[in-house]
């Protein structure tokens, strides 16, 4: 499998990254080099192997649904790029 420039642009858009026309050539080459490294996995027979999503064989712990943290909303607002009235402000989404 090899990616062309259009596909690389599409992936960038999905990842919310922009790639300029001057970068696209190099990015496509690099991503294809990485993907060809990954093609090695095709050599291995894995039909009957359970996928391993996590190193520890553990299940998620449950806890009582109670408030465990103090209200830090002011501290979290202070470090935001733009805030107002306890909201994070962004460019207008709906006119």
């Amino acid at each position, binding site marked *: 499998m090899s990616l062309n420039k259009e596909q690389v642009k599409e992936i960038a858009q999905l990842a919310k990254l922009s790639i300029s026309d001057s970068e696209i050539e190099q990015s496509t080459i690099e991503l294809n080099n990485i993907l060809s*490294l990954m093609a090695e*996995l095709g050599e291995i027979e894995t039909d009957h192997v359970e996928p*391993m999503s996590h190193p520890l064989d553990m299940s998620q*712990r449950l806890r009582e649904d109670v408030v465990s943290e103090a209200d830090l909303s002011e501290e979290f607002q202070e470090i935001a*790029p733009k805030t107002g009235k306890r909201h994070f402000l962004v460019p207008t989404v709906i006119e």
Partner: protein
Amino acid sequence: MHTLSVAELSKSLKNKEFSSVELTQHYLDRISHSDLNAFITVTDDLALSQARAADAKLANGSGSVLTGIPFAHKDIFCTKGVKTSAGSKILDPFISPYDATVSHKLNIENLVMLGKTNCDEFAMGSSNENSFYGPVKNPWNKTMVPGGSSGGSAAAVAGRLTPFATGTDTGGSIRQPSSLCGITGIKPTYGRVSRYGMIAYASSLDQAGPLTQTAEDAALVLNAIAGFDEKDSTSALRDVPDYTKTLRDSIKGLKIGIPKEFFSEGLDSSVEKVITESIKEFETMGAKLQEISLPNSAYAIPTYYIVAPCECSSNLSRLDGVRYGYRCEDPKNMDDLYLRSRSEGFGDEVKRRIMIGTYALSAGYYDAYYLKAQKVRQLISEDFKKAFQNVDIIMGPVSPTTAFELGAIKDPVSMYLADIYTLSANLAGLPGMSIPAGFSNNLPVGLQMIGNYWSEEVLLNAAHQFQTQTDWHSVLPENI
């Protein structure tokens, strides 16, 4: 005093040979005169006030063994009120509003934070050249890389700018820079140390640990930071032993497995020689050597470079320019805000891994990449399970070479290949360690030790015994 280990400094502080304030000022002076670029932020005022508080505790005898000891945090641990950048422009404006559990645990024992160390952006890299704050220099030769991603931590310890530092290891990021800088570093079993407040790269692989001068120091620090944490759902609910208690045990009869795949093509012959000799030293001490096979270990590279980018593409989606961190100037609309904040804020390697992960997880490719990689991950893990039925510990090189020249490796794939020996411990979730084992062309070589799950004390015991018989760990770079 900067050539003393944590254990030695602790005794000196107890005996009032010097105060924590004096010790802290000494390290702050060393940092200000250093040209290694090992620190992103130096917290002078905070350090001195913490040192005064530590001295008060030491004076009334209520301190712990680590009270008053200065240290540095990799700039990936959230530290309340202090910039926490993860080596990235996108978090350059981020002043953490809370402490990571690791930070909190060191705070309550009254340690003294000297500052935050440089690292590859979001811990993605093997040379520390991917930092927004510039590359770190290796104290053994300033034209060389210190390794990565905890390169600033490793260089700071090797250059004796701090008695110890914290680090994180997702694919070798504690062990490889420890090897390249000639210090001791341990990546504990996945789940041993809380990941809460440790900026996530690949959540099923990331694990925190100390970078120190000696195995004894690593045991002291691990005692302080290990343990269950309610705030991390993947932290393990298991008792933590006192790692200093077993350091002095004999290693007679210890069964060491030597994986033949770790001594194949690509391993520098002078590194191989150092590793072979250091393993022989263990035999002299009474350990039994045995060749083993980890047949799938060569697939660790493609497996890791699918799993980690997939997890990172998901983890790093939170960096959107909305709630914290960098936001682009005058965004026209939401899409423009996301696109420009992320594109201007992330460096090339981070973008590359996000793109690879986005692609590998996208519809139609998930089975071929992510699912396949998870299956191979299982096979890699099973290789270790089989091996540990017959041996107590596995030994081999950390890295195929010693430190390389800054700027020498430009191609991403070539850089990935250098991680060959460290990735599999992360994929399996096993503890791993690097200890100084000798030199090749005046550059340090680290011996890797991989243990079974929850067997950090076996690694630390073997490492400490090796360090009682050898002095590679106390050889210093020039002009220290």
